[in-house]
C-alpha cells in the first residue's frame, strides 16, 4: 500500500487533502502518518491514517510500500534513495503556516531531480504525480548507508582530538 508521511510534528492539510481526493477518485489504497490533527485540520475521508507510528512500524510500512508520498523532509528523502523507493514530495510553505521557514522548498529544489523523486509544488500537481508514481516501479538504490568519506574523516579527527 502507498505510504503517506508528513512527519510527526505538524499536520500538512494541503498534501493530505490532495492525496485523499486521489484515493477517492482512483480507489487506490493509501495509509498515512499525518501527525496530531486539530478539529479544524483536514480529516481524511477515503484513506486509513494514524497520527504517528513507532519507528519500527514506520520502517515496516515504508519497506512494504510500492511508493511513498511525503513532505520534503530529509529523513524521508534519504530513506527513499537508500531503498530505491519511488517518492513524491511536496514542500511545506511558511506563508501557508505549514512550517516556520521555507527550507523544504530549497530541499525539494535540490533533491527533486534525484532518481525516483518527483515534486508536487501545488495541490493540483499531486494527482498526476501519483498516477505517474504508481506506474514508475522501484529503482536500484542510488545512495549507500554512510556519509561521504571526507566528512567521516573530518568528524573522526575532530572527535578524537585532545581535550
Amino acid at each position, binding site marked *: 500500500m502507498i505510504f503517506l508521511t508528513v512527519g510527526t510534528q505538524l499536520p500538512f492539510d494541503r498534501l493530505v487533502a490532495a492525496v485523499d481526493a486521489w484515493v477517492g477518485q482512483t480507489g487506490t489504497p493509501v495509509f498515512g502518518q499525518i501527525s496530531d490533527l486539530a478539529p479544524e485540520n483536514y480529516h481524511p475521508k477515503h484513506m486509513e491514517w494514524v497520527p504517528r507510528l513507532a*519507528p519500527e512500524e514506520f520502517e515496516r510500512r515504508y519497506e512494504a510500500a510500492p511508493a511513498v508520498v511525503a513532505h520534503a523532509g530529509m529523513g524521508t528523502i534519504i530513506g527513499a534513495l537508500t531503498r530505491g523507493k519511488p517518492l513524491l514530495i511536496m514542500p511545506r510553505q511558511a506563508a501557508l503556516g505549514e512550517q516556520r521557514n521555507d*527550507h523544504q522548498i*530549497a*530541499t525539494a529544489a535540490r533533491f527533486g531531480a534525484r532518481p525516483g523523486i518527483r515534486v508536487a509544488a501545488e495541490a493540483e500537481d499531486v494527482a498526476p504525480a501519483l498516477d505517474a508514481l504508481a506506474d514508475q516501479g522501484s529503482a536500484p538504490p542510488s545512495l549507500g548507508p554512510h556519509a*561521504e568519506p571526507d*566528512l567521516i574523516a*573530518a*568528524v573522526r579527527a*575532530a*572527535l578524537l582530538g585532545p581535550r
Partner: protein
Amino acid sequence: MDAASETGDGPGVHWMSETSKSPTVPAHRVMAIASGGGHWVELRRMAPAWQGCQIHYVTTEPGYRKELRAEPEARFHVIPDANRWQKLRLLRQLLGIVWLILRLRPHAVISTGAAPGYFALRLGRLIGARTVWVDSIANAEELSLSGQMARRHADLWLTQWPHLSGEDGPSYRGAVM
C-alpha cells in the same frame, strides 16, 4: 578519574588487527545527539566516524533503540522532546541533557541538531569535551537557528553545503549523502 585521563594525554588509537584495520579507542566516550526524524537519520549516517569508541546515542524518540540491536556496544539514552515554543518541555529536555553530560562525561559531543544538540555542545564545552556541529543538509539556504547558536561552542562547525561555507566558518567538509 577515568581511564582516558589517567593516561595524561587522552586516548591513543589502537589497531585491533592488521587484517581488519579497524581502529578501536574504547576509552573514548562520544555522545552523538539529535532530535528525532531527519536529524537522527543524518547523524546515524556518520557512525563510521566514531567506530571503536564508546558511543552514547541520545535522542527524543525511544523507538530508535531497536535500530541499535545490531550494535550491542552502543548505549542509548532518551530525552524529552520539545519544540522552541514549549518552554517547560525545553527546560525538561535541558535538564535531561545536563544529567547525561555530568553522568557520562563524554570526551566528545557531536550533533546534527536541533535544540538538544545545541544544549549538548554548550554543556560539553563546559566539561572540556571536543564538540562537533554538522548542520542538517535540510538547511540549503541558510544555517539552522540552532546551528548559528552552536557556532561559539563548536570545535568543528560544519555546513553540508559548499555555498554556505565561509572564511570565518562554517566549514564544508562533505555531506551525509
